[in-house]
């Protein structure tokens, strides 16, 4: 394009050359924009599931149709995921959940699959099934159980145009085997609006079956949808507790306790909590740095630089003995991708489940590995590193968004806790892990 622009400006007055250069920019911009339009995107097909997923490197919604009994006609049951099932482009009937005993299946993956009529008696047209997505998806994949017939997968963009390479052909006629056959298509961009599945039926009226159908869901971005980032102890009683018999004070009252989202968290009651609700279509990295004990600060929240000379060290700070608990909703993983366990209760996290708070005196954790009063070494849980498992958001089959909820308490020692303002900042960072 640069050569084209230069040639156009040759011999023109200076002002005109500037205009021509501008025209060249315009041309570049238009072409670049055009390259992002759906119709020009490339689509790649895959027959190996691992290769497909590695290439996709993105979350998918997956359904195995086990939630519905055999015979259920599938049409709008997955509308919350933005997927609508119907008969194929030549009519026929909407697909049904099929008992695999009634399928000419090579190898069932589980009890049920989605069957679509191949053709009507005497009618050779490929009826099949159609899936229409509310928004464009990037990928579509799954398993064909009846491998004896060729599966055609036709992809259309939002304008109804066939995407390049469509229909994609999987398997060959007369193939036999005992293994379900994977099929998958990935587009460069999210432009797959409609997918037709069909076979050229050797036996019209028979069904072909698809299972573990997967596609990039309607959510494209992870997000935090509900949060409360302030736990306020307000004014503390200056003479509560002693060193030998500390008074435990759990954050309660305003401003958060009456807030509906946090009030519905099991066991929260009237306590003030910090709360994040995380929509995670993809795996997210959740990093939590507890930030140590509540530390003396100035009336404007800036650090107080005075030293607590009761404690050893070159930079001891005035601190309140702080402890914390956490409850987790949904499934979280360790960085090693094993199931994350609540540090408060030891429970494994799981989809659509809250971990508990433990007993009144159980499960409290120190946000620092140093004692706030003496500076001595203690056991501390100072940070959390975990992954928010994918496919957790409103409308997902896993039961909804993930959430993490913190609560804190202070062990007060009367006037040995010095006057002033205190603050602790829990650093929480959410980034994409895939």
């Amino acid at each position, binding site marked *: 394009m640069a050569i084209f622009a230069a040639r156009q400006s040759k011999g023109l007055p200076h002002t005109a050359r500037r205009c021509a250069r501008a025209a060249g920019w315009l041309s570049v911009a238009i072409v670049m924009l055009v390259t992002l339009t759906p119709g020009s995107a490339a689509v790649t097909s895959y027959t190996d599931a691992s290769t497909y997923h590695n290439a996709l490197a993105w979350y998918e919604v997956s359904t195995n149709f086990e939630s519905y009994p055999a015979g259920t006609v599938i049409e709008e049951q997955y509308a919350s995921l933005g997927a609508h099932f119907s008969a194929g482009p030549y009519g026929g009937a909407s697909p049904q959940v099929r008992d695999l005993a009634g399928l000419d299946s090579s190898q069932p993956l589980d009890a049920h699959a989605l069957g679509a009529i191949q053709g009507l008696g005497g009618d050779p047209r490929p009826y099949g099934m159609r899936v229409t997505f509310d928004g464009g998806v990037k990928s579509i994949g799954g398993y064909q159980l009846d491998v004896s017939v060729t599966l055609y997968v036709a992809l259309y963009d939002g304008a109804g145009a066939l995407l390049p390479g469509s229909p994609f052909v999987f398997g060959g006629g007369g193939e036999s085997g005992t293994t379900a056959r994977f099929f998958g298509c990935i587009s460069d961009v999210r432009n797959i609006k409609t997918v037709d599945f069909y076979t050229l039926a050797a036996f019209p009226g028979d069904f072909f079956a698809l299972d573990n159908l997967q596609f990039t869901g309607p959510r494209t971005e992870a997000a935090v949808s509900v949060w*409360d980032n*302030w736990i306020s102890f307000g004014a503390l009683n200056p*003479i509560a507790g002693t060193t030998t018999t500390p008074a435990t004070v759990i954050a309660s009252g305003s401003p958060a306790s009456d807030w509906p989202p946090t009030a519905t968290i099991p066991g929260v009651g009237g306590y003030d909590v910090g709360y994040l609700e995380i929509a995670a279509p993809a795996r997210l990295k959740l990093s939590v740095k507890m930030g140590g004990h509540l530390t003396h600060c100035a009336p404007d929240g800036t650090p107080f630089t005075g030293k607590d000379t009761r404690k050893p060290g070159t930079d001891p700070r005035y601190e309140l003995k702080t402890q914390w608990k956490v409850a987790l909703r949904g499934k979280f993983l360790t960085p090693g991708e094993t199931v994350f366990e609540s540090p408060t209760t030891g429970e494994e996290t799981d989809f659509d489940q809250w971990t508990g708070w433990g007993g009144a005196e159980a499960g409290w954790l120190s946000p620092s590995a140093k004692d706030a009063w003496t500076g001595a070494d203690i056991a501390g849980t100072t940070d959390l590193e975990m992954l928010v498992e994918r496919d957790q958001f409103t409308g997902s089959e896993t039961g909804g968004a993930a959430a993490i909820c913190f609560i804190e308490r202070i062990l007060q020692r009367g006037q040995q806790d010095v006057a002033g303002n205190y603050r602790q900042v829990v650093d929480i960072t959410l*980034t994409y892990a895939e």
Partner: protein
Amino acid sequence: MKKTLLLVVVMMLVAGAAMAQAIGGAVPLQEADAANVPPIPAAQVQGTSVVGDPATGKYDILINGWIEAYARVSTYDNWIDFGIMSPTSGSYAAPVSRWAFSEAGEATYALTGEDGGQTPLYEVNSSTLNFDLAGLQIQTNARLDLQMTMGGYLTRCTSTGADFVGSDTRRADGYFYQLRNQAKMVMHGKFLANAGPADPAQDAEGTPYVSPTSLTATDYNDWTNWGAGVNAINNEDGWFEPDESNDPWTGTAAGPVAMAAQLPLLNLVVERGQAQTGGTGEAAEIWWTQRILRRGLQDVAGNYRSDMMITLTYREADTQWQPTVK
């Protein structure tokens, strides 16, 4: 030209959105987005804008609280009572120490006819129960200014405690009749030297106050002693003059008895975070006792009194931080 620029800007925005979802890209705060299907509810947001930056994936949580400056004082004993003193004890040339002994100490220290003060509630750092003490226990979570005029020399008063206005004409300065009393003290906990309202500054460590009796620096949970040597009251160690005026016998700067360190005023800072028993900062305490150097009948008959004026005020009292509500 305008159209061209617009297109370039659009391209940059598209590229930015793509970057945000890359590995390591920030997860932003939810926004209602009509392009998302099914519709996603807008974020519900509560808290504070003091911390975090959702645009960069930072969802920090602020925890805060406030403790009001609060101090309390227990006056365990505010009366050092010499009771009845022997009129003939000591002489000008050879003064005798009249301890402020207590009723418990009368058997050991009282001369005939002498009467002591109340026995203290408990022994204070090896004071025994034989001496009458005055003391304060201070529990405070904030620095306090402690100022105390030591009361000067015991000065003659009437039988009702009112001023006796007659002058001691033996004195060169023509001042009142006075006894030659001295004081000593012990301190528990940490006190700082007070060099003014801004020294030490609130965030400065300050200089630990040194006991004028033991000559040792005060520190948390530690007692200073009743003397620089032996930790006892009934010795010649650690006494100081509660006055900086003339010798009460001569009315001049010097008298027959050498002048000890003059300390008419204590001006201290009580360090913050000292309260109750146990822990890293037990309650601060100051205890005093006195003695009188008697010169027999040259000490004139009558009643004598000295008033130690003690004032405790807050040196610091931070207001409550009000983080910005979102």
